[in-house]
């Protein structure tokens, strides 16, 4: 006689019952916090934080490697600063949430029977990309802002694709857990566990501690982008007031290998490509053109930002003089000979925004060489890596 597969499986677990040792034994985990209700509340919070990180991450990726349909606007000028500041701050705030969630559901790793049926097996299999991905995204992101690269892959590419894998696994997880979460939040279960007293934290106490953790890690770091809190952010990877001319630098002139070329008196800014009058302007010639002063932030992909007052020639004025088309896009190239960020693209909105400058001065002084002397690009609503320093050529398309 042939038995149903499910019966066979159940019989198997019964036979393997004697293997239930260590954490597989009933009653190993005694805290009353390992409940669906605790997991549900933390799960919802994580859903929100992962949603914010994924969306802001996609935005940052899209700006730097825009698909043909994606036209990132140059306004509002602060949008990228907020979006990327949120990406990093939310990632940091997710650390306590994720640790608390994994702790809450840890006993489920040893649930008995380990597999009930096909759906259960597939759901549990999906936990590997979920847990591996979540921990990896946070750990690699934290390492990246600490400028520590103990791996062989290129961080942005790995972080980006790992995010897709993690979000896929999260979709499976939501599908599996939505009913449990809804039930737990309606409070039909676990009421008994609230009234017990075993000398540990109550659920409210536990969630308060997790919330306090979120607050503490945020306050300790967010001053790297929220300037008024910089004195409090003793663990901020950057201090928006520390650096040459009073704000941070990501790539120094020395590390970009431009220290010699940048101070050559023969330096010229070339405006070439789809123009009727190609230009080759010296620093003096640029300085004698009408200058514009703007207050714009450097907003780094690593989540720090700092505002400064920039003075220079509006890019669209240069395009006008060169006779470029009024909807031309531009590619800005650096003296830097190698490196991923030696060149940045300006779509038509960025190229023609009145505040996009070829900046010559910052905070009233000529640019420090680490800030891009003799001239750098600065524009509203752009990632710091796309505010090309040590400009050498504007290629009009």
């Amino acid at each position, binding site marked *: 006689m042939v038995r149903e597969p499910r019966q066979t499986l159940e019989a198997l677990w019964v036979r393997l019952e004697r293997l239930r040792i260590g954490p597989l034994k009933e009653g190993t985990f005694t805290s009353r916090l390992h409940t669906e209700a605790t997991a549900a509340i933390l799960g919802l919070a994580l859903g929100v934080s992962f949603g914010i990180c994924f969306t802001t991450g996609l935005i940052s990726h899209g700006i730097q490697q825009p698909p043909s349909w994606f036209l990132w606007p140059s306004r509002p000028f602060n949008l990228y600063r907020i979006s990327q500041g949120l990406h990093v701050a939310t990632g940091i705030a997710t650390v306590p949430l994720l640790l608390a969630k994994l702790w809450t559901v840890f006993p489920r790793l040893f649930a008995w029977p380990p597999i009930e049926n096909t759906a259960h097996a597939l*759901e549990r299999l*999906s936990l590997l990309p979920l847990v591996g991905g979540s921990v990896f995204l946070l750990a690699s992101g934290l390492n990246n802002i600490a400028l520590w690269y103990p791996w062989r*892959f290129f961080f942005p590419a790995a972080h980006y694709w790992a995010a897709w*894998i993690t979000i896929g696994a999260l979709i499976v997880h939501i599908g599996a857990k939505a009913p449990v979460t809804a039930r737990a939040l309606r409070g039909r279960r676990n009421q008994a566990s609230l009234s017990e007293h075993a000398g540990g*934290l109550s659920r*409210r106490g536990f969630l308060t501690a997790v919330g306090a953790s979120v607050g503490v890690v945020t306050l300790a770091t967010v001053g790297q982008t929220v300037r008024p809190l910089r004195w409090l952010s003793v*663990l901020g990877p950057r201090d928006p007031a520390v650096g040459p001319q009073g704000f941070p630098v*990501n790539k120094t002139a020395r590390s970009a290998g431009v220290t010699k070329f940048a101070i050559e008196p023969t330096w010229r800014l070339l405006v070439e490509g789809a123009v009727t009058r190609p230009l080759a302007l010296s620093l003096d010639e640029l300085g004698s053109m009408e200058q514009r002063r703007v207050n714009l932030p450097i907003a780094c992909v690593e989540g720090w930002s700092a505002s400064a007052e920039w003075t220079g020639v509006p890019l669209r004025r240069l395009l006008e003089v060169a006779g470029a088309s009024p909807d031309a896009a531009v590619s800005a190239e650096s003296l830097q000979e190698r490196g991923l960020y030696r060149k940045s693209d300006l779509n038509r909105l960025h190229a023609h925004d009145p505040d996009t400058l070829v900046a010559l001065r910052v905070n009233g002084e000529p640019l420090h060489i680490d800030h891009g002397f003799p001239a750098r690009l600065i524009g509203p609503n752009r990632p710091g890596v796309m505010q090309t320093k040590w400009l050498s050529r504007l290629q009009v398309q």
Partner: protein
Amino acid sequence: MSGHHAPKGKAFWLCLVAGWGVIVFGILGVLADADRTDPTNLAAWFVGSALAHDLLLAPLVFVFARWLKRIVPDRVRPVIHGGLIVAGSVTMAALPLVLGRGGAPGNASALPRNYPAGLVFVLGTVAVATGLLAWRAETNPGSSSDSD
């Protein structure tokens, strides 16, 4: 928490298919971008992340909590747990900075602070706050956060 956890229903199967579709998209992305993603190295870090948590960090926390149960009196234990949750979270989040293995040589504006001192300051503040709450719990049992 045991038995009958198998997911079911149309929504689950739909999410399963959609979710694995996205996972496969991500894996294909890793493979197509192999020059930059170094798939073997990335896979090792990805799986290693899950193992580091499940086999190392989590067991350590549970063993530590068991030891703590023996040495900390019941009445203040909730407060101590709360303080340790905050302290542990901050430590984990700050670890790459505090270890000080990263950096940008020649760039004084990168990682400009003294991170070990920063962590000590935060942990000290957490310890003082925890101490005050524990003292309150000890002297005034009715007011503990464990009353709900």
